[in-house]
């Protein structure tokens, strides 16, 4: 406990708030890598999940649904640290690209699964009503399926971003900047204060991410859908 209190002194250390190893720069780096990986993940997984969930009938949809679910289970089993190290050891490409690959790879499944499952599980009666009133496929997807599936989709996005923020920390071990640097460099210098400082910053960032999604949920999900989920 004492060690943790002592670590708080680290935040007031010389040069801690400026320069390339300063906290503001490390936070900016961490956010930049995380949001970049998140944007790529969303660009891949969200449209794919919406499409697969929307076309949920017939054999191809069943097969792709099975693949989506298996991919999520497999991704959970993959050790992130090992994947990061292997990619960096094997790759000959530049700095950040090889690290982005595992970040995205591990974040795609939760978005894909939740989007797919959310859209696919929209009651048949709602879809029937939407089509029966003359909505076109795209209107059914965006005016009915998406808003109803939104809580699950947001949950998937949240899981993915948290996963990315956490993996980006670990990626410091293979040379990425960001808050993980304090932990990795602190460990190699036997400097616990730096490690604890980094850990506290990472925890705060993760909790803020969580809070941001809670706010987004409140703002974006229709009260009618929220109420329905609550009464289930």
């Amino acid at each position, binding site marked *: 406990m004492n060690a943790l209190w002592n670590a708080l002194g680290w935040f007031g250390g010389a040069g801690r708030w400026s320069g390339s190893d300063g906290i503001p720069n490390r936070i900016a780096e961490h956010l930049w890598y995380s949001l970049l990986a998140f944007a790529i993940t969303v660009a891949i997984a969200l449209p794919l999940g919406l499409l697969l969930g929307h076309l949920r*009938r*017939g054999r191809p949809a069943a097969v792709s649904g099975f693949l989506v679910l298996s991919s999520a289970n497999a991704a959970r089993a993959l050790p992130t640290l090992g994947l990061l190290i292997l990619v960096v050891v094997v790759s000959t490409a530049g700095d950040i690209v090889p690290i982005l690959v595992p970040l995205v790879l591990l974040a795609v499944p939760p978005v894909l699964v939740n989007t797919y499952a959310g859209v696919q599980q929209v*009651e*048949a*009666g*709602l879809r*029937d*009503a*939407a*089509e*029966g*009133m*003359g*909505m*076109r496929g795209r*209107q059914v997807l965006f*005016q*009915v399926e998406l*808003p*109803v599936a*939104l809580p699950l989709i947001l949950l998937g996005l949240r899981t993915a971003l948290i996963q990315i923020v956490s993996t980006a920390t670990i990626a410091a071990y293979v040379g990425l900047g960001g808050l993980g640097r304090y932990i990795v460099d602190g460990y190699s210098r036997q400097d616990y204060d730096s490690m604890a400082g980094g850990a506290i910053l990472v925890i705060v960032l993760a909790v803020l991410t969580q809070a941001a999604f809670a706010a987004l949920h409140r703002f974006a*999900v*229709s*009260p*009618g*859908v929220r*109420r*329905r989920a609550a*009464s289930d």
Partner: protein
Amino acid sequence: MDTRRNDGATGADEDVSRLITFAGVTKRYADGTVAVDHLDLEIPAGKITVLVGPSGCGKTTTLRMINRMVEATEGTVTVDGRNVRDVDPPTLRRGIGYVIQQAGLFPHRTILDNIATVPFLLGRDKKQARAEARALMDRVGLDPAFAGRYPAQLSGGQQQRVGVARALAADPPILLMDEPFSAVDPIVRASLQDEFLRLQSELEKTIVFVTHDIDEAVKLGHRIAVFQVGGRLAQFTAPDDLLAAPASDFVRDFLGGERGIRRLRFTQELDAERDAEREAERAGER
């Protein structure tokens, strides 16, 4: 509202035009099941026509072929003189009201916006559409205080009223109703039926109404089409005529038998069967 009531209509005893016709219509699914078998049917304008029969008789399939939720394999369905195959399905459907059993209300939209769905789809002015939706709420007996609420806050009977209001919002000449009152308890059902009849006496829409309940069919129908398993039309006539002179043993059994059986069965069971029928139709369709 369609008001064409020319005298020279084809019916022997009716003075109205046939707004919806089936000519030699068959629905056969990919697995070979025949849901509807060579159906010829002319549905009178401005009246309630009830399609009734046991589960798996093809009554829902027949209804859904009118707005192309199901495509006929053979034969021709016409609405207002036009072959439905020649009309783009979404356009066709926006001109036909549609009410289903569980109301199918959009949980994320307020009651008012649920009712205004089709006017919104048609690109009408939002403010105007909402004002009309509000007027409709009154018409179907909904408390105006519900306008800003969400479907989950309403009872089953209230939701069903919203379903009816939503189908009426764009003032379509035709209304398709697929077991709209089956999911509510008998007392609520009776009051919904009464108000529905009152409303229809003012609106005079052409209504096709599917039910498995012969009592409901007799109470609401101006014409009743009895279907038998295998998708064949067993009899199509006025309620009095049906009760007085059943055309076959099947119809006689259905009129009598269904009453007895219905008391023994749980409504839920019937609903489950109906869902299964729906699901089978759906699976075969896509």
